[in-house]
């Protein structure tokens, strides 16, 4: 039965592009434009709110570039900077051409070097427990390493 229905549907002429006609209607055009502006306005307001809260200190991202021990992390910073540089490049290109560009291999290699440096730096930092502690900080108490002194006295 479903096969017959599919065969019948395939033999029928293509349905009229009702949706396309509706979109081309002047009222719909105005409606779509109004919705687009409303969306952009909402996004703009949310962006401004986010930036305002960041400048007022309500949203604190200053630890974004910190190492595990509290030092400033250059590996994070360079990854952030290159990501921003490439995204600004993409942004400028799209602003001028309104199409997505091909990204050259050298840019991808640079991003790869940057990400690998970040990952390797993270590995180095976490390879020893001393690298995770602030200067003067004591390590957290771990499990007991041997029998308690009382046991040795009893034996």
């Amino acid at each position: 039965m479903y096969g017959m229905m599919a065969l019948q549907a395939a033999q029928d002429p293509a349905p009229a592009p009702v949706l396309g006609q509706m979109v081309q209607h002047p009222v719909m055009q105005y409606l779509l434009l109004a919705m687009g502006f409303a969306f952009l306005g909402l996004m703009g307001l949310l962006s401004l709110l986010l930036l305002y809260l960041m400048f007022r200190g309500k949203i604190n991202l200053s630890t974004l570039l910190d190492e595990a021990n509290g030092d400033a992390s250059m590996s994070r910073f360079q990854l952030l900077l290159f990501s921003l540089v490439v995204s600004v490049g993409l942004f400028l290109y799209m602003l001028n051409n309104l199409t997505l560009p091909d990204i050259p291999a050298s840019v991808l290699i640079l991003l790869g070097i940057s990400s690998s440096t970040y990952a390797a730096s993270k590995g180095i930092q976490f390879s020893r427990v001393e690298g995770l502690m602030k200067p003067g900080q004591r390590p957290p108490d771990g499990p007991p390493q041997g029998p308690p002194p009382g046991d040795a006295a009893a034996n």
Partner: protein
Amino acid sequence: MLARILLIEFGVFLLGLILALGYQIGQRLHARGAGWPAESLMLLAAVVGVGGTYMKDLAKAHTAVPGMMPAISSIWVEAYGLCCALYLLAKGLRVWRLKKV
């Protein structure tokens, strides 16, 4: 027109985000009096050099090749890779030389 407005909005937001982040990090470093070690400063110089050069290329040539973003010269990529390797080596030595606790 809407696409252009959206892109401009995104650009303004991106710029504001960078400024806000820089402001917060600057305040935090200033409050703690923290500094960066020598290998970090070397990598910072390399990042600023390569990033600045590429931004200059981006600003100059929107489309030297139509449909493609400008490339980075291979000498810059190699130099940056070398700087990253030196940074990781110095950081590895620094962590390796930390006293046991």
